[in-house]
């Protein structure tokens, strides 16, 4: 099954979830906690993340949508962004890159 990346706050994590990205927590310029990408979270990790004041964590989750549903979602989100930015000049490459990042995020 396909997967997708989700950002979750520490209270919403569950043991067994898989980290989508390496995690590095820094406090006062000092690295206080790290976990590698692909790490399977344990309850102990959850406590550690909370005590090191993690704000959110990227985890890999199953994506139950079919290809057709994913495509429909992407089209719907593209339509919404087109409506929001209907008056804006998006010709600059930087502007297009931001719109693309918003579209990918909203469609995930």
């Amino acid at each position, binding site marked *: 099954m396909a997967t997708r990346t989700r950002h979750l706050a520490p209270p919403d994590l569950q043991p067994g979830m898989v980290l989508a990205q390496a995690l590095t927590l820094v406090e006062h310029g000092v690295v206080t906690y790290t976990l590698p990408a692909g790490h399977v979270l344990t309850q102990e990790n959850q406590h550690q993340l909370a005590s090191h004041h993690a704000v959110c964590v990227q985890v890999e989750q199953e994506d139950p949508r079919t290809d057709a549903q994913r495509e429909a979602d992407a089209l719907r989100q593209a339509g919404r962004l087109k409506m929001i*930015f209907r008056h*804006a000049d998006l010709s600059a490459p930087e502007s297009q890159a931001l719109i693309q990042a918003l579209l990918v995020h909203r469609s995930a």
Partner: protein
Amino acid sequence: MPIHAGEIVAKLQALPAFPAIVTRILETLNDERAALELLEQHLQSDPVISARILSAANRLIRHSGREPVGDVHTAVSYLGLNRVHDVVVSTSLLDFVKNSHCTSVFWERSLAVGLCAQELAGLVDGNPDHALVAGLLHGVGILWLHVCHPQEYQQVLIEQQLSASDLAQTERALLGIDHLEIGRLLAEHWDLPGDIVQAIAGHRTPPQDSLPPLLAVVHLATVICSGLDLPFQPDSEVRLLAPQALRALGEDWEDKMPDLLGRVEVRFAQSRTLLK
């Protein structure tokens, strides 16, 4: 009916008192010990904020098997100084906004832009506290107009919808002043730092050259929050996305954007629950 600049501060008593704790926190940013003392004093005298700090700490440890936290000192140690700092500033400014009887969409939008600006400030090595305050107050001129000239402002909104024109332009045409200039006058009256004043006044039309980093950050925060529907408004629109503001984020902003968008959504959802 034109509104004169002299009227802006004179009519301030129609709004709730500006929370003094915000300017005091901004004054102690470079002194962690002074900041901690100030926060502890403030928490002791403000039961509403203390309750929110306890609630946030207990939410954090609810699956840990630990006993619920009942005192503010322990709650602060669980949450960390930065998070407590954010809760105090956000709560104080959002209570100020809410007590002005604005719509929930208005304060949720202020919260979202504040949090997004704070995340973006991390990309430009900017001051996260200044970014939070500037984002939370970016629309304070609109708040003033709603409270001090409700009927005239309703007319502005109707005219803007009918003519599909820019909001600030319509305000200037009908009232002789726009919410950005009103925001600037209010922020100066409250003695907020110059970069915050500049960002509140200029975030809708960032200059091409010599773009101040905080102004770029607040401009992009408003754009991103509209793009993420934070909060959802059916008629949401962005008229200007300034590419120079994106360039101001540095060369690798595109790599950092996916994580930033996710963090903003998570923080917005958490803070909205906490502050409601």
